[in-house]
């Protein structure tokens, strides 16, 4: 297993270099001049040239890239064009905020998704199954900004139970976490249901019933464990997207996360911030994929992780 992890990490390096080159080229190919944005619409040509020089944008593009890589390997990702703070400082706490939100949303999605999926399978084709199926369809279809605003109106403006914005306490986490996790909960419920129904039809389950086990034990001990593999796949895939794609939820709830920072940085052409954030997300994807593969081995001993 150790070799497996090392090999995966080594394979990730060319991928990350590729990502950094692609991001760098895309940012430089994008129309719009960072120096003009920093200097503002009313700047003189001389103001803009001053800014360009102080940002190092007057140097050849290859030199800029090598300079970036040279510093990046030492953990120095430069300074934000807009605020003058170091990129590590800008991204650090926002990344933690996003991890917290995505983690909580995934936990919510897994718990709600698995419980509803199991309930559906246990009561298949009956009223409860149909109700959950319809709810899950709504969960998948409703866009995050809509769900977010509805939750805000009900739980904050009308009921006054939960705060609307910020991240000072765990209470602040509830609404964004539900908003972000809802669609995933619905996907997990559907995958869980389909796979569990299939599993419950298999011979060994019939055998388990035949030897006199209760329905509850059959589902938890024999059905659930076997049906869990596709759920892990979905969780692994979705987790990556949650980390990079929580933009809308973060914007609606004013959650100071990485997704919102990336969007802002793109629209202000804050190149160092965009580069470092995208690299960070790429690294996160690699790690999550690795963890998912390791988890397969834990849940299903038949999978050899070597």
């Amino acid at each position: 297993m150790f070799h497996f992890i090392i090999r995966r990490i080594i394979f990730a390096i060319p991928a990350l270099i590729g990502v950094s080159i692609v991001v760098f080229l895309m940012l430089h190919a994008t129309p719009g001049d960072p120096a003009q944005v920093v200097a503002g619409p009313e700047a003189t040509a001389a103001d803009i040239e001053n800014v360009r020089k102080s940002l190092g944008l007057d140097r050849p593009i290859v030199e800029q890239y090598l300079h970036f890589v040279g510093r990046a390997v030492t953990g120095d990702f430069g300074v934000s064009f807009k605020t003058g703070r170091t990129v590590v400082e800008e991204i650090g706490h926002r990344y933690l905020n996003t991890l917290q939100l995505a983690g909580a949303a995934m936990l919510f999605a897994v718990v709600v998704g698995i419980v509803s999926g199991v309930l559906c399978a246990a009561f298949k084709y009956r009223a409860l199954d149909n109700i959950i199926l319809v709810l899950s369809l709504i969960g998948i279809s409703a866009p995050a900004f809509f769900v977010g605003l509805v939750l805000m109106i009900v739980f904050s403006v009308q009921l006054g139970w939960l705060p609307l914005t910020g991240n000072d306490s765990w209470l602040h986490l509830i609404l964004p976490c539900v908003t972000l996790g809802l669609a995933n909960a619905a996907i997990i419920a559907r995958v869980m249901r389909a796979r569990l129904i299939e599993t419950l039809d298999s011979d060994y389950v019939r055998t388990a019933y035949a030897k006199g086990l209760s329905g509850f034990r059959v589902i938890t001990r024999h059905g659930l464990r076997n049906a869990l593999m596709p759920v892990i796949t979905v969780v692994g895939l979705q987790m990556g997207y949650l980390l990079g794609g929580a933009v809308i939820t973060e914007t609606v709830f004013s959650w100071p996360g990485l997704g919102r920072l990336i969007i802002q940085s793109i629209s202000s052409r804050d190149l160092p911030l965009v580069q470092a954030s995208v690299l960070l997300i790429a690294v996160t994807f690699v790690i999550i994929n690795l963890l998912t593969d390791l988890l397969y081995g834990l849940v299903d001993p038949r999978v050899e992780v070597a």
Partner: protein
Amino acid sequence: MTATISRRRALQSAGALAIAAGIGGPARAQASKNTYLIYATGADASTLDPHFSTDLRTRRVAMQIHETLVARAPDGNFAGLLAESWETAADGVSWTFKLRKGIKFHDGSNFDAEAVRFSLERLKDPATGSPRRSMGEQIAAVEVVDPLTVVIKTPRPYAALLAQLTMENLGIVSPAAAKKHGKDYGRSPAGTGPFKLAEWRPGERIRLDSNADYWGGSPKIRGLEFRVVPEDSARILVLLSGEAHLIDNITPAMLPRLEKAPNAQLITAMSQRTVYFGLNTKMAPFDNPKVRQALAHAIDTRALIKHVMNGKGDVSRSFIDPSILGLPASTPYEYDPAKSKKLLEEAGFKDGVAFDFYHTLGIYLNDRAVSEAIQAQAAPAGFKISLKTVDFPTHLSMLRARDRAAAYMLSEGSPTADADVSLNLVMKTGGPSNYGNYSNPALDALIEQQRTQLEPAARNATVAEALKTISEDVPLIPLFYSPQLFAAAKTVDGIVIKRNEFIDFNGARFV
């Protein structure tokens, strides 16, 4: 049976409870002297260093902490802030300022003439790297006479010096703090203003504490919090839920809803910001003045205000808001498609003319709706307008190329409430924001002339003539003077939204 009834009853009472909570809900913002006044706004400041400020959000925070030598009184006249009085020498280039005494910066050091010299020279020093160095161009030298007297010299007589000194870029910083923090001064600012920095969580909030030692009297609130709430609808919800006391950038479509809200009040102010339809005078078809005049007659700016802007905003023919002291008012070009069509025919476009209009999206109030309305208004006269939109950095770089966009939306603010800045930026030949390549030697001469006229009446006459020339030549079409739309909780008053887009919280209090 009984079980069913009791369950239903339980549900009903839960519903009633929810409604009751909804009505009584927003009493949570318990307001007192010990409360921070929370202002929810769309984006964070980028720095608190006034010499590096280039945008409105930065300006609004930085100027709670810092002050300038002079400011505009509500009537538009100059009032001393850090300067008590001033006089101009007979040579017209030396301005002597007497400073207020006994003022301390937030870091405890004393405010004096040396601090003024240090601040203005810091802005001008290339080593500082300010993106707004050009704001100090008209200051040739700053001389300390004694601790409370400073002389500012201009290269030539410069009529707009006082107006220029109201800009945040010429704000006064503590020399001790600026030397200590260097490039990081923007995160550890020390000014003389009514509020001082307490905490800054980037992208989340900036908390300012009231300065109990403020020379103008301590503010009546504990402090101010600028909270970042990027989403327009979410900003309205934080006001309605009582989580914030002041919100900005309300879209006109939301105004009727807020007017009906029991716990909210609208605060609107004009801004002296002109949103305009820019025309590239070196690109076809707008190199022909007749086509420009035809287009001016094809846009109904009054209808834009009435129908698209919900009645908010002002309109006239003048490039610069006539509310600026001493400027003449003028009526907008009449909406007259027949006349417009005739002018177009005279210009040789019998079958009408087609062009692309680059408008902004989410930068100016209702920019998209305004552009669509113009497209429809101008069609009967024969203008076939294709609406194009790119993100703002791309928009700016297209304009700066000066040969890629024939027609574009842009705005020009007058943060100094003086015509000099805008005329030089946008209208003078080769001006930094003269994206329409407009060049009129007669106008350039007027712009130069008004700069050196220290006598206000004579200067105003020159500016009025310059604005008249612009109106007749139509290098751009003013669409409206943008309103500033805010809403506040009914529990606060005393917030003053100023015309230069600053916000004055000195008198703010909870009621």
